[in-house]
């Protein structure tokens, strides 16, 4: 008997496509794209009643004030601001890199800047009415909103302030802002770059409570 010659029953493969489709649809439906990105902010610790309030006097020229009212109108450095968030970012950047009256630390930072940024400072900065240098307490970006300010504007301004700092950090180490944001701090080489970009220039963003 020719057993080997016996024809095997065929498995119909016509529905294979459908099964694949269903699988696809299943995964499409169940997969939720995780959105775990955002703007990180560190709140100040709650006021300690036992500790005396330190009253540090910071000259006006070292503070870049942004005020927002309930109608979402902006007051930047005492003047109404109509421009885009991009303009605001550039203003903040100019403020940080002003080097109006640098301290020895500030001079050291200036000397460590790449030539492109030195040119930026000399072209836009050196204003004695603006911040002394980017070191601690010498340039502070302050933002105060009202209770009626929209969250959208709040996030937009927070974004612009962070963008200004990130741009400064990124161009210090010679990369783009995008590359700066994607630096992986668990990688030692990238962490070193991160620290180098940030050294000496603290992200001095002060957010006042709305009233």
């Amino acid at each position, binding site marked *: 008997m020719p057993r080997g010659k016996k024809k095997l029953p065929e498995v119909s493969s016509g529905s294979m496509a459908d099964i694949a489709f269903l699988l696809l649809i299943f995964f499409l439906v169940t997969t939720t794209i995780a959105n775990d990105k955002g*703007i990180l902010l560190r709140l100040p610790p709650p006021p300690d009643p036992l500790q005396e309030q330190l009253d540090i006097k910071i000259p006006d020229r070292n503070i870049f004030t942004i005020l927002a009212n309930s109608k979402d109108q902006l007051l930047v450095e005492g003047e109404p601001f109509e421009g885009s968030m991009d303009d605001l970012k550039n203003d903040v950047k100019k403020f940080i890199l002003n080097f109006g009256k640098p301290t020895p630390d500030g001079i050291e930072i200036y000397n460590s800047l790449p030539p492109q940024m030195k040119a930026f400072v000399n072209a836009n900065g050196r204003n004695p009415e603006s911040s002394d240098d980017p070191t601690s307490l010498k340039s502070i970006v302050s933002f105060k909103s009202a209770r009626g300010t929209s969250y959208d504007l709040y996030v937009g301004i927070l*974004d612009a302030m962070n963008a200004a700092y990130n741009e400064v950090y990124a161009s210090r180490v010679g990369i783009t802002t995008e590359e700066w944001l994607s630096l992986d701090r668990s990688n030692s080489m990238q962490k070193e770059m991160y620290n180098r970009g940030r050294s000496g220039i603290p992200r001095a963003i002060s957010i006042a409570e709305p009233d």
Partner: protein
Amino acid sequence: MPKFKKNSKTSEDIPTAALPDIIFMLLFFFMVTTVMRETDIMVKQKIPRATQLTKIERKSLVSYIYVGEPKNVSLYGSEPKIQINDVFITEEDIIGFVNTEKDKLDEVERDQITMSMKVDVDVKMGIISDVQQELRKANALKILYSTIKRVAEK
């Protein structure tokens, strides 16, 4: 009167080729409808857009706070509300919530807790500020304003 002649050529058995597909579809239907999400968001969530995004490194340290106008306006009104897990809460309950969330973490990581604020764009700053004051009291100082990446227009 004409007599209807029975057509004997048509086969009478039902095709069963599609049966496995139907079974599959049913299976998938039940798989899909099984609830896997832990929270049902009851507030409007139109997340704002921004450019300078940071990624959360440790997802286990994140707790979510949803703020927005309730979806069911006739039941809850149109004032923005704070939602945590599956319930609406008031500002005063936030400290308690933070503490229960902190209890879930290891002792060494409790200060690292990150509160992810998922806030609707139409919300005003007043309620956000109240939430933040409570978070400060509860010593949960790391905040992440959840945003979506904005593609630069140019």
